[in-house]
């Protein structure tokens, strides 16, 4: 701590240069924080996907249907605990840009399969007893101001009714919360029996199954058994762990993680050059001062430490300010898509990664100038 004043004084030597460098670092880390939240949004569900759950879909594509009767066969396979099904509805609420997922499910089995969706007992009972009942997640409820008791019309784009109509109306009986921060609470679920009876085609057909296995370590093996069960049938299946399924879904618009990492690598590399140049300049400008420090008794190592300390402090102030700004932008301004992202938050893990990056950048930017200062020969440097 007794050297802190010396380090701070050196940073204040060229205030404008120090401020500009810190601002560059701050912007880089703001970008890092913000893009980390975007990445979380795109991979929502991957981290919180059940390790004991599989998704079973048609082998050709998820838009191909599977028979509803497969459920009994799946549940008979050794190692399978239970299976529930869902279908993609794809309706429009008011206008196409108001996108959120909508799926008909069997309420009781569905809620048992997904304990991470928290619904009040009263709301659960209401859903079980209301044929046109639906529940929606907190994110979408807040986005559109839905309240329990609302009647919500959805315009069917895939599904029409037997009477030829395309407007489906649901009674909102519950709003579910997520058990974890990363739980996707953007979806809208309604009853399969109401849907199946009213739809104009596809009766007895569903979109996919969620399957819970007894032993997560056997998930891959059981997925193989399921696919084998339906091999050479008119509707062959592809079973995979839920996490892989969610990731595959996100990857349909490209490998977001790779794209974001590529952007961040470019930004950090540029900022590293900026910070490194600042440190190199600051050491070059005070060669004789560093020589004086050595002359009065500072060791090579302590001079190395001073320069590295200066570099780390420079990046720490800029970097932490950047992370703080990112956190404020994410927490206060929220989802930039006004609700299209199922989740949008700054994960603790990303904050820790950010702090580690700050430290790494501090060391990397200061290392060469610090080694130069360490190797300085006093007699030569004093003559400059």
């Amino acid at each position, binding site marked *: 701590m*007794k*050297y802190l*004043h*010396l380090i701070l*004084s*050196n940073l*204040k*030597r060229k205030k404008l240069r120090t401020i500009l460098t810190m601002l560059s670092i701050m912007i880089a880390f703001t970008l890092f924080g913000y893009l980390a939240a975007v990445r979380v949004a795109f991979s929502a569900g991957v981290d919180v996907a059940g390790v004991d759950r599989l998704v079973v879909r048609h082998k050709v594509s998820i838009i191909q249907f599977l028979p509803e009767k497969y459920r009994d066969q799946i549940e008979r396979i050794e190692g399978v605990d239970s299976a529930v099904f869902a279908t993609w509805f794809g309706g429009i609420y008011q206008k196409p840009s108001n996108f959120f997922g909508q799926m008909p499910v069997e309420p009781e089995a569905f809620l048992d399969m997904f304990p991470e969706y928290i619904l009040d007992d009263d709301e659960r009972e209401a859903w079980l007893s209301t044929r046109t009942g639906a529940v929606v997640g907190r994110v979408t409820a807040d986005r559109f101001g839905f309240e329990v008791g609302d009647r919500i019309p959805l315009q069917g784009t895939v599904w029409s009714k037997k009477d030829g109509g395309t407007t489906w109306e649901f009674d909102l009986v519950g709003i579910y919360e997520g058990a974890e921060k990363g739980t996707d609470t953007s979806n809208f679920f309604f009853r399969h029996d109401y849907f199946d009876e009213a739809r104009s085609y596809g009766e007895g057909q569903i979109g996919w199954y969620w399957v819970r296995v007894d032993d997560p370590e056997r998930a891959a093996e059981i997925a193989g058994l399921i696919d084998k069960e339906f091999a050479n049938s008119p509707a062959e299946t592809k079973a995979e762990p839920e996490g892989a399924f969610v990731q595959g879904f996100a990857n349909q618009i490209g490998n977001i993680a790779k794209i974001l990492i590529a952007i961040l690598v470019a930004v950090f590399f540029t900022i590293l050059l900026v910070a490194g140049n600042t440190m190199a300049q600051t050491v070059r400008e005070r060669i*004789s*001062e560093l020589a*004086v*420090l*050595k*002359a*009065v*008794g*500072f*060791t*090579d*190592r*302590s001079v190395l430490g001073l320069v590295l300390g200066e570099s780390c402090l420079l990046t720490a102030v800029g970097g932490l300010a950047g992370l703080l700004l990112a956190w404020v932008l994410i927490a206060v301004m929220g989802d930039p898509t006004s609700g299209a992202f199922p989740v949008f938050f700054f994960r603790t893990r990303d904050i820790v990664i950010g702090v580690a990056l700050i430290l790494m950048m501090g060391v990397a930017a200061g290392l060469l100038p610090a080694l130069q200062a360490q190797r300085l*020969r*006093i*007699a030569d440097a*004093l003559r400059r």
Partner: protein
Amino acid sequence: MSTDNGLLVDVKEVDKLFKRGSEEIHVLGGLNLEIPRGEFLALMGPSGSGKSTLLNLIGGLDRPSAGTVTVGGERIDKLSNRRLASWRSRHVGLVFQFYNLLPVLNAARNVELPLLLTHLSAAKRKEHVETALSIVGLSHRMKHHPRQLSGGEQQRVGIARAIVTDPTLLLCDEPTGDLDRKAGDEILELLQTLNKEQGKTIVMVTHDPHAAHCASRTVYLDKGQLSREPVA
């Protein structure tokens, strides 16, 4: 520092050569010098004669190519870089021609620098700094930065920094070289006081015969060799 028959500095058969590309430049050759404890020695000679090089060797800022440098009974040419740095911080005070103060620190912080290497508390360091600055007559300028001080005052701060750890040996490289006569005289007077009243052993490199008069002994250096008389 331990004593060695009253001798503080003993330079024996010292060679110093520098390499400039493929060329070797012999700055000092077989040089011998003894400096008794408590002496004020002036080291004179033309530019490039090796005065500063010799001063650097005595102060442990550089190492001889051959020969031995013993200060206070310790062979400093044999010490590792780390031990040499520690030795300098305890036993040597350095005063430079151009003061070499850190411009970002005020006078007190500049003087405090060598004390940062000790285990003294902040309060004790402050006490030592105040004492050193009062010795050089600058108690009232503690918070001033170098740019706010005259050349003479800056050199006084430099001397305060050199004596703050109470070293036995003060090495001054042309301490009046950048000052006018009046300020230079004040610095020389201060050095004499430190020599006479506090028993500091001082080695001063100078071009100025007037400054050399303040010393108790003057030796001349030319082409890497010492003599008692100036070389014509």
